[in-house]
């Protein structure tokens, strides 16, 4: 009897009721702002000041989406964001993978080099962006796509390098060694053998680099203005209007969060590695 009772008792996490109440409240807390944003984005402007608030818009409209994308140049921002994020992601994945391979297989530069790269992750962006702004203005990279692509590549490199570093160290060397014995050069062993084997890890690292670029605001705010502006910086236009542009802001937010959430949820198996730069295997 006693054994049966104790087997039913939860081992971890407290009483079941308390667990589900906590989870329920937390789910509401997470979903509520997202729902309200969606609600605002399809609500006619006349409903904004209604009391009680309009919980379910009865006459949904897509007008705010149209205004946000075309009048507020949201579409341009979206295209810029795509160009810049995709290019920076590709560069970051390529350079990160090559560097990580060298660190993992040849222990290049010992611990110093790998920790130096890691330390870049923790530099406060304000310390970098001020001088980069001055340098970019001098060399003509200010407010260009190339400028922001280069900045984003550097800013995502620590994550790419460390995620791939952990991935290569978890991969057996035997295939590459066999390739070397068979007469491959080291480059061929890397490019033809190790890279295809590491493809899932590279994709995961690229997804996190893309999300980081897609959601980045600070660099984009200070290094671009009217040409290479990205989607998050378009939100500047909605500040200080005391509500008049809320539908547009909400609509643009909904457009912008779809790609990164879709990618993130698809890659959630790798989330722990992504968040801890490969330090923890999820």
């Amino acid at each position, binding site marked *: 009897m006693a054994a049966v009772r104790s087997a039913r*008792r939860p*081992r971890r996490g407290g009483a079941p009721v308390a667990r589900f109440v906590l*989870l329920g409240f937390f789910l509401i807390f997470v979903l509520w702002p997202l729902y309200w944003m969606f609600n605002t984005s399809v609500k006619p402007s006349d409903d904004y000041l209604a009391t009680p608030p309009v919980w379910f818009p009865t006459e949904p409209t897509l007008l705010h989406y149209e205004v946000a994308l075309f009048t507020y140049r949201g579409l341009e921002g979206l295209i810029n964001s795509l160009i810049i994020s995709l290019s920076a992601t590709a560069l970051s994945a390529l350079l990160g993978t090559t560097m990580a391979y060298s660190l993992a297989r040849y222990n290049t530069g010992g611990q110093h080099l790998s920790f130096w790269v890691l330390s870049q992750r923790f530099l406060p962006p*304000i310390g970098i962006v001020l001088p980069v702004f001055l340098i970019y203005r001098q060399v003509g990279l200010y407010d260009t796509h190339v400028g922001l692509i280069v900045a984003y590549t550097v800013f995502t490199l620590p994550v790419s390098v460390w995620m791939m570093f952990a991935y290569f160290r978890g991969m057996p060397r035997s295939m590459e060694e066999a390739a070397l014995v068979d007469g491959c050069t080291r480059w061929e062993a890397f490019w033809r053998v190790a890279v295809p084997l590491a493809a899932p890890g590279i994709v995961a690292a690229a997804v996190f680099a893309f999300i980081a670029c897609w959601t980045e605001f600070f660099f984009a705010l200070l290094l671009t203005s009217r040409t290479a502006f990205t989607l998050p910086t378009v939100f500047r236009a909605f500040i200080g209007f005391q509500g008049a542009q809320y539908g547009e802001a909400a609509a643009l937010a909904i457009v912008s969060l779809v790609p*990164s959430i879709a990618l993130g949820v698809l890659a959630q198996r790798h989330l722990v590695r992504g968040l801890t730069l490969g330090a923890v295997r999820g």
Partner: protein
Amino acid sequence: MPQTAAITRMTGAGAPPRLSSFANWADRHFKWLLVAPAVLLILALSIYPLLFSLVVSFINYDFQVPGHAFVGLKNFERVVFDPVARWSLLLTALLSGISVAIEFVLGLAVALAMVRSFPGRGVVMSILIVPLFISPVIVGQAWTLLLQRPFGPTNYILGALLGQEVTIGWLTESPWLYISLVVADVWQWTPFMFVILLAGLTSIPPNLYEAAELDGVNAWQAFWAITVPHLAPMMLLALTFRLLDAIRMFDTIFIMTGGGPGTSTYTASYYLYTVGFTQFHLSQATAGSWLFLIFTALVVTLLVRRLLKVETA
């Protein structure tokens, strides 16, 4: 002749491949060639700018004052003796400390609630991690939509719950605007804590709990005797990573309060941004950013040293 080919391959095996002199050189320096592009890029866009900013902070580089004269420590003095700078540093420490503490406790509670399987756990998991993939700008925007008077529904909901009218200026009145900023940060980053702590919880061997239960240990004692010590390295890792990001707090403030009213919601990053980019005192801003960098480095060294100590213990 397939046979001859096989023989040449066999004799070739183990011997170094024949290469041109360039390819030979490249093969010998292979490991350095692989790291070179990434290292050069980091040097060009991170180390060089940092050194450049160190130079700028000792000269006059101000869009309002002509010339680039050497001014010694004057720029640093201006920051150190600016009450707004000290306030912003204090606020950064308070806001990030409070936010991270709440995120940690809440994240741990949710992780404990999620550790055992139940129907629908996969869906709940996918929903809980969504805030991690949203731009902080949009998080700020979403909370502005909820809180801004008179448009946001928050005061109405609170009024209905409490049975009396609520007229709080969530984004304009102290202390509510600090609470709003903390809530937005907690909304976005509690999942970060939760995901890492959950990974730590699932790696604790369940037989430890079974053994404890046979010994008559209750759940609360088991939590302190088993869960906490096993989870400690993960806790420190999550806290370190999160704290180092929290002290950069800028985006939500930019959208939600714009640093105001007055300078009451200036964080260190926001202060340096206004000094550099709205007042164009670039030298003062770079001097301040170096001071901030040194503070950050101190925090990193302290926390990472603790982290290493726990992992080797």
